[in-house]
């Protein structure tokens, strides 16, 4: 199988013409005849008892078609499902109803819905609903929530603890006891708001006569939505069509199935009209999942010459007021297994406590668990180097898994497929001129200026699959992907994928893969996604899996098409199939390239079926169902160079270098774009973003006015470079790049700032490194002593 030419070319995106002309089809762009608009009344309290709800005035408003509370949906819309039921824990899944019954448990909890002729009327009606609440004490901090005496969210989950999950490898206690040096640190992974630019939208169109539901949704995984609607609302799966044409970013926040989604389905069935719910941004801040929010205590044991020997981690994760679709998997499996990073450390313990609090639920946000893991180990590497007075680069090299040790079974019991960690580090160090920088830093220090360089040598676990692993981890779904490659009579090609790209550009990269194999120009290939009636099945786009898993399925389906084309070419050329060769879509007898059947000739004959070989079925279409044998393990070295202003605490990023190895690269332009965006989100966490609740449980960063989504002036130019270590267990050699930038970057920035401020005695500052926090850390250091976790 040749993978050359189109594979590796920066082909311009096939998605873009519709998007740059304003003709994208985002969910809110769909308008159906007789369509109604739904809005949701949300709790202003973080924790309160509902005494009564009076909807009479709202119902009386002209243009209002229905007002519903928990009582009205009872027995018709069951509690929202949690789809990641982690084994090896005492997991308790709280009952989370789409509309609150006796209590509200977070600011933004849904209390009632209004369905009206348009959104203005619906909003007016919301103001007319009277709810009598008795506010209760709220708890938002996960560590406090687990303490005795904390306000209780659920009667049947005492102590607010949803789970305690453990992982052990080797002899962490013994190795820690005998370690020559030990480093301890607490890291606070602050809560983040994903902020996909398109808020969430659901449009449910129930056809009562046919008993069919068409559901347009801003989702990363339409088939999972179909499955969950079927499972929770009793509509047969074959009577549900879920559509997600253009989706305006997701970053994990469009994986879950939300209460608002379920309520539009209910309302459409009840009123027998299409019902659309368009979340506004303020609603998005409270009703769409948040990310991170983990308090992590770490102890690292090592030898005096810097060899890491034992690692112990306790993570208290804030799950929010209920368990979101994939919530429990994030701080456990997705975090814990990759914590040991690129290092040979083998003794490892991890305990994760999932706490329920009066906050918005947390779930997967770009990287999901792996940014927290990479941050932890890369910060610990720097702290260990600091304590040992060792160059952090040298410390990393002493602990790296070596290139000849792959496949390598890590302390997290993952089998890392391939890697060469020195190679990416070498390239990054050359790009930054490491010795030159250290000299420059020393000179700057002599003049009272604070320059710092932060390293992040990361490895991530991506290409989420195989299904067997999903089952072992308690994920209530599979992780395989199907593909269909259909060559039409005119030689044009339709490719069906169960993945659901929403900005990642696979309409282009998948066309490149197919074009390469079939010898058909990419312009002739359309990649169809986001329609459960067109596509056999699919588990969606997340976990950097789309190209590694979905792309491999496509390559394999295409290979089957080529095989059939060869057999038909042999028949048409009156030759033996063994003698047929092909290139660039031309099929001929080896040695006689003048008598040729093109793939277009063959497609026409296959579809006409006038003259097929004995036993050959008509058409030129093949399916493949691909389930990988392992995850993929992209890796790399990021370097951030900063200058810190001692007087103001301001940080200026002078350089940002990203050297990534994501396996083989199909479209370098798109891969660079994924890295840029990923790094921007990592820098956002490092420097700017923080979702903050006040003592009453009100989200005080509840809009883009108060929450710092980075703008163009806040993100530096990013220098990208790559090495290519192919994935050995898929035919494309691709590993995945969607999350790389985010997983790699926050710690590079924080390491750089802490390197700059090390002479002042500053060891660590928690994210986000706002000027205020940095300034306070500097003041504290000036007043004597080292700093750990300033407020």
């Amino acid at each position, binding site marked *: 199988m040749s993978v050359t030419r189109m594979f590796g070319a920066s082909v311009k995106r096939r998605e873009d013409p519709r998007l740059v002309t304003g003709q994208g089809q985002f969910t809110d762009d769909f308008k159906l005849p007789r369509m109604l608009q739904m809005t949701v009344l949300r709790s202003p309290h973080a924790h309160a008892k509902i005494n009564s709800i009076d909807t009479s005035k709202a119902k009386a408003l002209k243009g209002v078609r229905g007002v519903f509370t928990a009582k009205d949906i009872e027995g018709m819309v069951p509690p929202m499902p949690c789809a990641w039921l982690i084994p090896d824990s005492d997991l308790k899944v709280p009952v989370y109803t789409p509309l609150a019954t006796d209590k509200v448990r977070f600011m933004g909890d849904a209390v009632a819905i209004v369905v009206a002729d348009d959104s203005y009327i619906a909003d007016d009606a919301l103001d007319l609903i009277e709810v009598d609440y008795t506010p209760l004490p709220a708890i938002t901090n996960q560590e406090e929530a687990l303490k005795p005496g904390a306000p209780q969210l659920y009667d049947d989950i005492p102590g607010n603890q949803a789970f305690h999950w453990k992982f052990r490898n080797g002899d962490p206690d013994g190795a820690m006891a005998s370690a020559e040096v030990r480093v301890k640190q607490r890291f606070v992974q602050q809560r983040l708001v994903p902020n996909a630019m398109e808020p969430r939208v659901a449009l449910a169109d129930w056809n009562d006569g046919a008993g069919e539901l068409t559901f347009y949704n801003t989702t990363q995984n339409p088939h999972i939505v179909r499955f969950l609607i079927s499972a929770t609302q009793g509509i047969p799966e074959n009577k549900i069509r879920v559509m997600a044409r253009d989706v305006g970013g997701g970053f994990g926040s469009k994986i879950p199935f939300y209460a608002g989604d379920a309520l539009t389905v209910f309302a459409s069935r009840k009123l027998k009209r299409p019902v659309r719910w368009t979340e506004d941004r303020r609603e998005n801040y409270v009703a769409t999942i948040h990310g991170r929010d983990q308090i992590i205590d770490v102890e690292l044991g090592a030898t005096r010459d810097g060899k890491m020997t034992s690692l112990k981690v306790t993570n208290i994760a804030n799950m929010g007021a209920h368990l979101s679709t994939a919530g429990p998997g994030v701080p456990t499996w997705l975090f814990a297994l990759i914590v040991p990073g690129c290092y040979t450390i083998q003794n490892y313990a991890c305990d994760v406590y999932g706490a329920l609090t009066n906050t918005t639920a947390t779930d997967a946000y770009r990287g999901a668990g792996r940014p927290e893991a990479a941050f932890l180990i890369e910060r610990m590497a720097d702290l260990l180097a600091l304590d040992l007075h060792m160059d952090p680069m040298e410390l990393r090299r002493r602990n790296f898994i070596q290139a000849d040790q792959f496949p390598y079974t890590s302390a997290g019991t993952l089998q890392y497929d391939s890697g060469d960690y020195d190679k990416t580090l070498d390239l990054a160090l050359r790009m930054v001129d490491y010795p030159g920088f250290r000299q420059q830093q020393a000179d700057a220090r002599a003049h009272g200026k604070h320059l710092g360089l932060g390293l992040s040598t990361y490895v991530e676990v991506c290409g989420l699959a195989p299904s067997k692993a999903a089952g072992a981890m308690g994920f209530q779904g599979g992780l395989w992907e199907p593909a269909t490659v259909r060559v039409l009579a005119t030689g044009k090609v339709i490719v069906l994928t169960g993945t659901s790209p929403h900005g990642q550009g696979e309409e282009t990269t998948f066309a490149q893969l197919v074009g390469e194999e079939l010898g058909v120009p990419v312009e002739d290939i359309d990649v169809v996604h986001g329609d459960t009636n067109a596509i056999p099945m699919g588990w969606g786009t997340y976990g950097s899996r789309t190209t590694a898993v979905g792309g491999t399925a496509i390559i394999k389906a295409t290979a089957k098409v080529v095989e059939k084309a060869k057999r038909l070419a042999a028949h048409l050329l009156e030759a033996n199939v063994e003698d047929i060769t092909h290139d660039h879509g031309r099929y001929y007898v080896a040695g006689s390239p003048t008598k040729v059947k093109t793939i277009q000739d063959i497609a026409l004959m296959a579809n006409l079926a006038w003259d097929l070989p004995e036993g050959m079925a008509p058409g030129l279409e093949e399916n493949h169902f691909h389930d990988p044998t392992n995850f993929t393990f992209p890796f790399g070295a990021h370097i951030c160079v900063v200058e810190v202003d001692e007087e103001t605490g301001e940080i200026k990023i002078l350089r940002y270098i990203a050297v990534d190895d994501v396996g083989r690269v199909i479209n370098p332009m798109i891969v660079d*774009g994924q890295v840029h965006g990923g790094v921007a989100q990592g820098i956002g966490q490092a420097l700017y973003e923080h979702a903050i609740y006040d003592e009453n449980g009100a989200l005080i960063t509840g809009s*883009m006015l108060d929450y710092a989504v980075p703008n163009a002036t806040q993100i530096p130019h990013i220098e990208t470079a790559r090495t290519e270590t192919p994935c050995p267990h898929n035919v494309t050699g691709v590993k995945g790049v969607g999350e790389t930038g985010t997983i790699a970057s926050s710690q590079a920035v924080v390491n750089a700032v802490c390197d700059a401020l090390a002479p002042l005695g500053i060891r660590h500052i928690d994210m986000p490194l706002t000027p205020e926090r940095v300034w306070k850390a500097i003041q504290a250091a000036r007043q004597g002593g080292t700093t750990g976790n300033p407020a």
Partner: protein
Amino acid sequence: MTQSIRVTVNGEERVSEVEPRTLLVTYLREQLDLTGTHIGCDTGQCGACTVTLNGQPVKSCMVLAVQADGASVNTVESLAANGKYHPIQQAFWDKHGLQCGFCTPGMMMAAVGLLKRNPNPSDAEIREQLEGNLCRCTGYQNIVAAVQSAAEAMRAGSSGGEE
């Protein structure tokens, strides 16, 4: 209670009945079915709804439809003309200046305004002047490259649609 307005939208005169509280963006999307202009926030922060009002970029979620009475409004749908992309559209495509594409219409309309004011901007000037348009996908790098590329094409005399 509605009010009658007369607005030239993408070169075409439209007479419509709107409620006084109707936002310009709602009018464009829901009444005129011009869905290329997107709503990303409610607070004028994200810029996804940027259109031009009498040639000046405005956030159409911060303008009432009645305020556009008698004015000329151009949206992303006006950029391409005579089957040809505006240089800004071509540049966003060429330079991979978009990923999910949701912020793109507003980003391009803001960029068109920027290039009108400053046909030869530095990278830093582009970043500063696009500060009011948020993108969560691209990290802005290729947006800056796209605006530079469009600036170059426009200085060389390539013209586009209405704006």
